[in-house]
């Protein structure tokens, strides 16, 4: 029989759970309040969620300080690992969520925001993502991943349009398959090394000099497929455009940011040690995957007729771009990843919010999707400020200086240069040129074409003060990013470097 386990509470270091617990408690509180009093206004839930997220953020930052003093913190049988990556990841997750959750405060009514469950699911999802990034235990990663994903499927479906259900079902099914890949991959690693903790796997593999290289590669193949799905690498990306189109613009924007950063951090933990251990196969495969993902999705984005789908493909391309940082695997590139994503989240927040504020209830005759380019034709004549804002976000996405993403872009390309990936750097640069085409296309529609009648009544109908504020924040973040880059770089480098990446 097994010996009873004696564990002292102190050694559990249960506080490492604090950020996630805050989110979970928040979710439960919202459910509890609903039991007590029904029919509260959505603004109440938004604010409660925001408050809990603030607390969450506070505790993460607290860990940040501890980390800088003492180094990585372990807890819960060493399952929790609070290192620099975890902290940075959580900050981006929580801040990103805080920026997106006020998008519920639309002026139009959407039924999903009347359910308190929406907000509690949202918080559960955040807790899931936080778990994903704050561990190197494959079980916990799996649990976090699934918690978040299941909540996300439900959130998408809550948008209550037939496309949303279709999107949710597609996402769900493919997610289930990806979960299978992940589990199977983990199983193979477990079989080879007898461990499911990434750092132990790494040390075991290193100890026997990758004797079972074949099995390792098979395992990596499965994990790559699983994370390829999560990070929407070609050809595992097929869900992305459909899901983005099906879900509300707010949620689509959210999906383009937060789940991805969680995925990136796990990918970093999983793949970088392999890249560094000289698994040439992985380098080659990642190289190919990165290039194909960037290029193919750019090319597909060019031919889209719907802005939201275009942005979906564009975010695939951006993900591919950032994936290059993992391939390069230097401190600089990992720093660049976080910098890029932080800047990207501001810009994408703005872009998707702009779509969100002009959401239509009913499609016009002949209109096949929510946000066709024609909808924005001649916007500068009807709403110049809106057009300028949208153009600003597009230019930033295209990497035109001095707007936000440009700085992330040059830092990643610079890391490719310093990492010795010259050709990759060139491919990345040239891809920006292809990408510029479809971002420009929207600008062309907005600034150089005559308005198409029928759409004008939808512009900004969904806008409320808080949405405008969010757009303003995003715009300021995008324009003045250059002043934020230096402090961001310093902090990120500190965290990344001290985590050993």
């Amino acid at each position, binding site marked *: 029989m097994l010996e009873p386990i004696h564990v002292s509470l102190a050694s559990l270091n249960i506080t490492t759970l604090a950020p996630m617990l805050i989110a979970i408690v928040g979710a439960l509180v919202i459910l509890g309040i609903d039991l007590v009093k029904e029919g509260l206004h959505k603004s109440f839930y938004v604010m409660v969620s925001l408050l809990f997220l603030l607390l969450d953020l506070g505790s993460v930052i607290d860990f940040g300080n501890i980390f800088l003093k003492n180094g990585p913190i372990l807890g819960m049988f060493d399952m929790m690992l609070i290192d620099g990556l975890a902290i940075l990841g959580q900050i981006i997750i929580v801040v990103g969520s805080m920026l997106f959750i006020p998008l519920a405060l639309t002026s139009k009514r959407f039924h999903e925001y009347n359910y308190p469950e929406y907000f509690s699911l949202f918080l559960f999802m955040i807790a899931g993502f936080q778990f994903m990034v704050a561990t190197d235990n*494959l*079980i916990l990663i*799996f*649990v976090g991943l*699934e918690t978040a994903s*299941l909540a996300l*499927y*439900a959130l998408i*479906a809550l948008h209550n349009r*037939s*496309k949303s*259900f*279709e*999107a*949710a*079902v*597609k996402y*769900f*099914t493919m997610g*289930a*398959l990806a*979960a*299978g890949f992940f*589990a*199977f991959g*983990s*199983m193979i690693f*477990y*079989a080879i090394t*007898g*461990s*499911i903790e990434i750092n132990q796997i790494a040390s075991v593999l290193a100890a026997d000099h990758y004797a079972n290289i074949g099995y390792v590669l098979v395992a990596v193949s499965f994990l790559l497929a699983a994370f390829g799905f999560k990070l929407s690498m070609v050809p595992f990306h097929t869900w992305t*455009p*459909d899901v983005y*189109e*099906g879900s509300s613009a707010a949620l689509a924007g959210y999906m383009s940011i937060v789940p991805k950063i969680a995925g990136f951090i796990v990918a970093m933990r999983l793949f970088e040690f392999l890249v560094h251990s000289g698994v040439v196969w992985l380098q080659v495969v990642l190289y190919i995957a990165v290039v194909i993902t960037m290029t193919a999705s750019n090319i597909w984005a060019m*031919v*889209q*007729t719907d802005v939201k*789908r275009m942005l979906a493909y564009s975010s695939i391309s951006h993900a591919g771009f950032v994936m290059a940082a993992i391939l390069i695997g230097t401190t600089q590139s990992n720093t660049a990843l976080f910098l890029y994503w932080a800047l990207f989240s501001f810009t994408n927040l703005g872009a998707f919010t702009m779509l969100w504020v002009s959401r239509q209830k009913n499609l016009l005759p002949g209109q096949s*999707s929510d946000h066709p380019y024609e909808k924005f034709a001649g916007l500068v004549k009807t709403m110049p400020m809106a057009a300028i804002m949208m153009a600003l976000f597009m230019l930033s996405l295209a990497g035109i200086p001095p707007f936000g993403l440009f700085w992330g872009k040059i830092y990643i390309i610079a890391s490719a240069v310093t990492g010795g990936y010259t050709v990759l750097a060139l491919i990345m640069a040239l891809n920006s040129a292809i990408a510029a085409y479809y971002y420009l296309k929207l600008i062309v529609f907005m600034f150089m074409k005559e308005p198409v009648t029928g759409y004008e009544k939808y512009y900004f109908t969904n806008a409320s003060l808080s949405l405008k504020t969010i757009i303003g924040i995003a715009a300021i973040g995008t324009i003045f990013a250059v002043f934020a880059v230096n402090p961001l770089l310093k902090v990120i480098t500190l965290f990344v470097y001290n985590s050993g990446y």
Partner: protein
Amino acid sequence: MEITLAHYLVLSGVLFAIGLIGVMRRKNLLMLFFATEILLNATNIGFAAISHYYNDLTGQMFAFFIIAIAASEVAVGLGLLIVWYKRTGKIDLDIMTSMRG
């Protein structure tokens, strides 16, 4: 014949392959969900066997978690399926193509 770890793993692999084929071939949403369950359970067999082989509980723990997650997946999946069925009266995959390109 003694049943070794290898047999379990082969079984696990075969089951996984069956699951994959099911995922690719099935047009009925419900059957599709079954196929994904097969995938996960194939993994479970593998974990249990390896766990026994190493005499280490971690694998079994992983299997437990997978079971739990599979269960919640089914819950969410069936929920979606029911709503979809209510809306369209069908659970056929091929009608689910309103978004493309």
